[in-house]
């Protein structure tokens, strides 16, 4: 093949441009820190990266949901704790009233006053709220679960948190099951006890039985809440591991291996410089140099 100046120049120029564009690509990767700077850099990688990002965003949301659920359950647990200890006191008062019997109405009346106070305190505990929502009120839009007369004004809706891909947890049990239905709920029972202490101590025995039943329902719901708390914690820790794995997969996919890229840039740079130097040297040679 005949070689002419212009064909050499064209080939040289094309190769120099190739070298320069390779170097520019690598420099773009270096400066952005990303292997995939546009979808066509790696079509399958791009789609995978989009899916990973979506999963990662969901995993973060699951963690936020878990934290919210744990906060809710903590409120429930501490409310139940206080309710249980209050009920213990009421139980002691009832037993005292039963022992006193009809012998000392003044003493029983004092006990009844204490029961009334315990009822008021329990009412406020049963209206415990998390982020402005009464935790025993179901999905009510109102600010309390029980009104001042002690009747339930919440609804039977469930409060659900999705804490994992297939893990959604109902945070509440219907308050009417734990506290009793309106008309025969905990607060009606307490009013009854105060009344019986004052007027009909003989009825206190059956009141005690009902109180024990109510206490049992509350304790069992508390342990259910505790079990949910534990389950969410387990799921959350798994979700956090998963989230870390997703982040690392995403990074593997889209971030550069710095050491590798530095080496590539250096070698591309060397190749480019060599090409430039050779072009500068060879381009000068001509027959003119050797003729007088």
């Amino acid at each position, binding site marked *: *093949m005949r*070689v002419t100046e212009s064909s050499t120049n*064209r080939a040289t120029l094309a190769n120099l441009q190739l070298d320069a564009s390779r170097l520019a690509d690598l420099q773009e990767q270096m400066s952005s820190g990303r292997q995939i700077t546009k*979808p*066509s850099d790696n079509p399958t990688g791009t789609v995978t*990266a989009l899916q990973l990002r979506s999963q990662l*965003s969901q995993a973060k949301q699951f963690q936020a949901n878990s934290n919210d659920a744990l906060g809710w359950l903590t409120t429930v647990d501490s409310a139940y704790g206080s309710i249980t200890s209050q009920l213990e006191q009421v139980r002691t008062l009832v037993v005292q009233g039963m022992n006193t019997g009809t012998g000392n109405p003044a003493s029983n009346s004092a006990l009844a006053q204490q029961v009334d106070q315990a009822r008021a305190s329990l009412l406020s505990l049963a209206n415990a709220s998390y982020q402005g929502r009464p935790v025993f009120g179901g999905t009510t839009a109102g600010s309390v679960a029980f009104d001042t007369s002690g009747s339930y004004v919440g609804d039977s809706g469930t409060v*659900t948190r999705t804490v994992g891909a297939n893990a959604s947890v109902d945070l509440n049990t219907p308050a009417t099951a734990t506290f009793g239905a309106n008309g025969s709920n905990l607060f009606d029972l307490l009013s009854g006890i105060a009344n019986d202490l004052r007027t009909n101590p003989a009825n206190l025995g059956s009141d005690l039985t009902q109180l024990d039943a109510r206490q049992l329902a509350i304790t069992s719901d508390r342990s259910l809440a505790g079990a949910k708390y534990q389950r969410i914690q387990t799921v959350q820790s798994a979700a956090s591991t998963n989230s870390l794995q997703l982040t690392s997969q995403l990074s593997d996919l889209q971030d550069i291996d710095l050491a590798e890229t530095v080496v590539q840039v250096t070698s591309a740079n060397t190749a480019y410089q060599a090409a430039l130097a050779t072009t500068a040297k060879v381009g000068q040679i*001509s027959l003119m140099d050797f003729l007088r």
Partner: protein
Amino acid sequence: MSGSFSGLTDALSALNSARYGLDVTGQNISNANTPGYVRQRAELAETGPAGGVPSMYATPNSGNTATVSGTSRLNDPVVDMRARSEHGRNGYLQTSASTLSAVEGLYDEPSSNGLAEKLNTFWQSWAAVANNPGDSAARNVVLQNAAGLAGDLNETALSLSRLTQGTGQQLTDTTDQINTAATQLAQLNNAIAVNAASGSNNNSLLDQRDTLLMNLSDLAGAQASIQANGTATVTLGGQSLVSSTTASTVSIGAGNVVLVGGTPAATAGGKLQSLVDSLNTTLPNYSAQLDAVAAALASTTNSAQNAGYDLAGNPGGPLFSGTTAATISVAVTDPTKLAASGTPGGNLDGSVALSMSGYGNLAGGADRTYQTMIGQLATDVARAGQQATVQQSVTTSVDNLAQSSAGVSLDEETTNLLTYQRAYQASSRVLTTVDETLDTLISHTGRVGL
């Protein structure tokens, strides 16, 4: 026997030939970098014995001197033809690759600014509403994110339609360029035919002709054939574009059909065909896919909203209006009108919001549709880029092949310069010698002993 003075005329003819050789070499050197210039060579030939002279009178060596027989143009027509066809293909692939990468440039993926991330954020903001349906801040965030999404889709659709407009403008420009080149070629054909008939040197016209043909290949993938007298006949997609001195007009008909002289042309190549394909297939396809993303977003969101109840307990309404990327917008302005609850009555149930927070993974949802689109776009751009790169290197190698026969080598021309210089010097010496010989004969004959 030859005549006494034939040596002088022979030497003169040789001097003329050498000088012509120097002229052509000089022309080659001065045009070494002229685009489209094909190197030329002075063709020298021996003059034969004069015709019609009876052999008994003819002298064995009479008249055998060098004369100029012509000037050849040293291109390789076969390689030129191949170069034109590769250029037509190259024009097509380069333009397609650049259109596709312009489409790709509209999507900043994968990144934290792309539409995919905006979708993620949108669905996530529903989870915040699900956790606390009464929180107006969380509801406001949903509305803001929805507006951001709709705005992004509108913007991208607008950019796509601008790209389509720009491509249409490019198509018009390309058609104009083709018509100009075709008209010039028809005029050139006329000049070439006249010159060829009169036997003049038309090498520079042929250079211009080849440049125009290459141009037409790049622009339209036009097929050229060279006639015996040097004129070029060009067809485009089976229709005659330039024939002898007539040029047809290329125009674009309805539905972006290429018309040559009013008749629809078959698929050709070059930039023209690529632009037509982009306008008819590529751009509408990506526009439709973006619309599908917008439609999926609107339909999944709206049907969930329609089935739910807002904060006041009223049935929810559509969140997005419009079903194309260009027209989608947020229909809800009051954050309390977002339906988060699955039951009526104005409660704080978050079941609708909760299920919407998981729509990022919905089969047939906006996210999946978008991912499919980006995947296809990425594959298309990568493939077009690879094809364009390969074709560019094929084209370059054919161009180099054409250059290897048509290009000027300065080393070679310098050598020719020396050759013709020496030939001129030697012919001058012959002239001097013959002159001196004749001088001896004329001035010194019969003067022996004087």
